[in-house]
């Protein structure tokens, strides 16, 4: 008898958890809805000076929710301001663009997301070719250098991510090493075993570094330089986020990575210094795009317009200090002095078309450290 009671209890527990399961997501959503409703009412009362009609026109999409696939560290801090301005709620999932692309392929482009925000441009180029992106040329895009956006209008750069070095001062001092100044410096034999960088097959930034430097040096010299650098590397990290923390922890003396606000912020906490290479600075655009399968394309367009506008770009820059794509937005002080004349004059479209060939050559060169 007792055993039946236990069995019944278990069944009830499962049923109860199933019911609460269905419900628990609702409280979270309703609280989010309540807070956004509160925010919008505050915004509305402050804008009460404007006429009713203007108010209505301001927020035609109020109440819509956009799903964002996010690969831009820190950007989520800027979403609340967007919601306040437009009434459009933003929900997001952080997922690296490589994984996102794999997911898109598995579901044949039928994604639940509306907007793709940040990440590796090569994934965007692949996605465009596979037909997953919606073509949209925002009126705001005119203020952005054509080199930073897709010529057919499928994606637009939000910011430029320059690449450089992060050095651990303690390690360098201990091993009596100098701070590297150029990419060729990295080939010096004294740096053997002290350099860490991500695999270009996985990290969009690293791929940009590889492709960019090859474009700048020319193929022959470029591959020679990389061969030299490869000698000094023990293994390649399997994620763009690894080299920085590992260098900060003292595991390696020199990290090659993206120079974002976060990178520079590490200087405050760790014995590290962020250094821009003096000969050439590779960079990659962090793009934004709308998915073809999105059911909220109009709201998505508002979102894209905002983040390409001066207001949106400045808000984004506040959230994470980067060189913004728009010409009329200042470079933030936190990321040091980027000598924009040293930014490589590169053709971003080649990032996509050359990818397979380039990665094959890379595999031949660094294969046994990238995958033994």
């Amino acid at each position, binding site marked *: 008898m007792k055993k039946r009671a236990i069995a019944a209890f278990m069944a009830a527990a499962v049923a109860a958890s199933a019911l609460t399961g269905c419900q628990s997501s609702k409280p979270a959503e309703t609280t989010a809805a309540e807070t956004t409703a509160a925010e919008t009412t505050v915004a509305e009362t402050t804008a009460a000076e404007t006429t009713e009609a203007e108010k209505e026109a301001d927020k035609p999409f109020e109440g819509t929710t956009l799903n964002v696939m996010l690969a831009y560290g820190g950007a989520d801090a800027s979403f609340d301001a967007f919601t306040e301005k437009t009434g459009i709620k933003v929900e997001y999932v952080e997922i690296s663009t490589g994984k996102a692309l794999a997911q898109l392929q598995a579901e*044949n482009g039928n994604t639940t997301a509306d907007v793709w925000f940040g990440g590796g441009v090569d994934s965007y180029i692949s996605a465009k070719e596979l037909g997953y992106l919606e073509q949209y040329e925002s009126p705001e895009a005119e203020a952005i250098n054509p080199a930073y956006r897709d010529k057919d209008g499928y994606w637009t750069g939000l910011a430029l991510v320059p690449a450089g070095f992060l050095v651990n001062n303690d390690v360098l001092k201990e091993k009596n090493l100098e701070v590297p100044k150029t990419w060729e410096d990295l080939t010096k034999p004294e740096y053997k075993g002290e350099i860490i960088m991500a695999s270009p097959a996985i990290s969009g930034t690293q791929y940009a570094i590889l492709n960019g430097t090859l474009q700048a040096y020319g193929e022959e010299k470029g591959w020679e330089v990389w061969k030299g650098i490869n000698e000094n590397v023990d293994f390649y990290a399997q994620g763009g986020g690894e080299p920085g923390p590992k260098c900060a922890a003292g595991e390696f003396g020199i990290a090659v990575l993206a120079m974002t606000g976060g990178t520079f912020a590490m200087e405050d906490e760790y014995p590290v210094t962020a250094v821009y290479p003096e000969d050439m600075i590779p960079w990659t655009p962090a793009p934004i795009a709308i998915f073809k399968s999105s059911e909220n394309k109009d709201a998505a367009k508002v979102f894209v317009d905002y983040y390409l506008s001066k207001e949106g770009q400045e808000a984004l820059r506040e959230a994470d200090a980067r060189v913004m794509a728009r010409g009329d937005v200042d470079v933030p002080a936190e990321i040091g002095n980027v000598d924009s004349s040293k930014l490589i004059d590169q053709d971003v479209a080649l990032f996509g078309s050359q990818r397979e060939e380039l990665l094959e050559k890379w595999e031949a060169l660094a294969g046994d450290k990238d995958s033994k």
Partner: protein
Amino acid sequence: MTTNRKSRYLAAELADRLILAALLAGIGMFIIYPICSVVVTSFFKDGHFTLEYYQALFTAKSIKLIKNSLKVAVLSSVLTTGFAFFLSLAVFAAKGKRKQFIRNSLVFTMISPPFVSSLAYIMLFGRRGLVTYQLLGLSVNPYGWHGVVILQVIGSISFATLMLSTSFDHLDRRLILASRDLGATTTETLWNVILPMVRPGILSVLFMLFTMNLADFGTPVVIGGSFKTLATEAYLQVISSSKLGKASAISVFMVPAAVLAFFFYYRAMKANEKSTGSDRADAEDSDAFTLNGPAGVMTWTITIVFYVIMLLKYGNIFLSAVSNSASGSLKFTLEYFGKLPRSQWSSFQHSLIYSCIAALAASLMGILLSYYTHRRKLKGMRSAEFLASLPYIIPGTFYGLGYVAAFSHKPFYIRGTAAIIILNLAFRQISLTNKSANAMFSGINRKIEEAARDLGASRLNILFGIILPLMKPAFITGFISIFTSCMTSVGAIIFLISPGKNVASAELFQSIENGRYGVASVQAVVIILATLGINLAFMSMLKLSKRGGK
């Protein structure tokens, strides 16, 4: 029999068949269909049918990967099983409070959030590790296959021990007492009496560990350095994009090794079934087994080493959550708590609920599967059992992508729901309880069920009245292992989460990917404490009811 009784009997028989049908349908729909959906991609490149991805597998590089994978999987599983055996002995030989303490420690240390352990290891034993560099002045390279093996062992030892000690709990004490009466030393008793009796348990654990470690990509990715296995290669092909087909082919390639392992496992289990079948007497605390001699020394040494390592590991994780050791000195800080993502609380609730439901369902299904396969010996069930093990054999990423591919179109459109996550979690873990139930069943006498049949009990009666109660220990250990696994696993569900339906383990993964190690430590601590709480609550709840039932 009156008509009433007869119709009740028939209804019960029908219900029994329906349960079986539902189980099989579940396996078909939620294991086979998704896996097929993703395997299919390995046969197509740009829309044409091709075997090119498979041909590419027969290169020298792939062979090297296969060797690496096997080397690590075999080493880890054998070492872990060995240590687990001695730890189980420690549990077995301990009495009362001590036994409880070791048991609880095992439940606690089973909770191992992904990546954080590898980070703790690097922090402790890396080039500038707290132990190796600061304490011992060595600059050791932690990366490589040895790091992978060590971490896999540390990560799975608690789980293996819990699984194995279920077998120990049901040893026939009388045989041990008899052996001692006849003058056998501890070592002799161990070797000749105990070992054969727990063989099914050892085999189950060995098989589970082998397949788990073969499919593990998380550990080698962080600590492997340039050492790669099939699983990491498949994972990397997926995330470096456009190579879904190639990655699927690699995953499929891992299946033969697992099939072989499964085959040996089956043979060994069968051989065991023939030798046991006698009654067993339940354990009495007063007949506690005393451990002397070399066996005793081994056991206690291993136990102590276990505790030291676990203290270091968890101490490190907890410390990282509240401190910043950047500039060489330790500063306590709560800053990471402020940097948690907005969705942290709701993700956490989701984790708890989804894992709970999945664990209950999976545990039950595992036992049912074992019952229908081994007790009822129905035709074809063995294949069902193998198929149910498939999700464990392929890397989690594949299983997740399978769900994406299978359930993104009508009429099966459940993407973006909680259901898809729960189903994925549940069906992946059936294997766990299934294997430990197998081990338990081989120690239980068939005659009980036969007697019940003779007395006119319907199959349903037998299921609910005899089998399930007997399987309670397997159900409990199953639930705890599965719940813990669900709370910490991330490989499969990373593709199934959607905004508003995120889970704690995925958020942890995202923190790590972005280098936010401090925040990751906090998230790990939260996951650990919550999982521990639920596990202990569940265990004590069932223990109380057990006493009441008697």
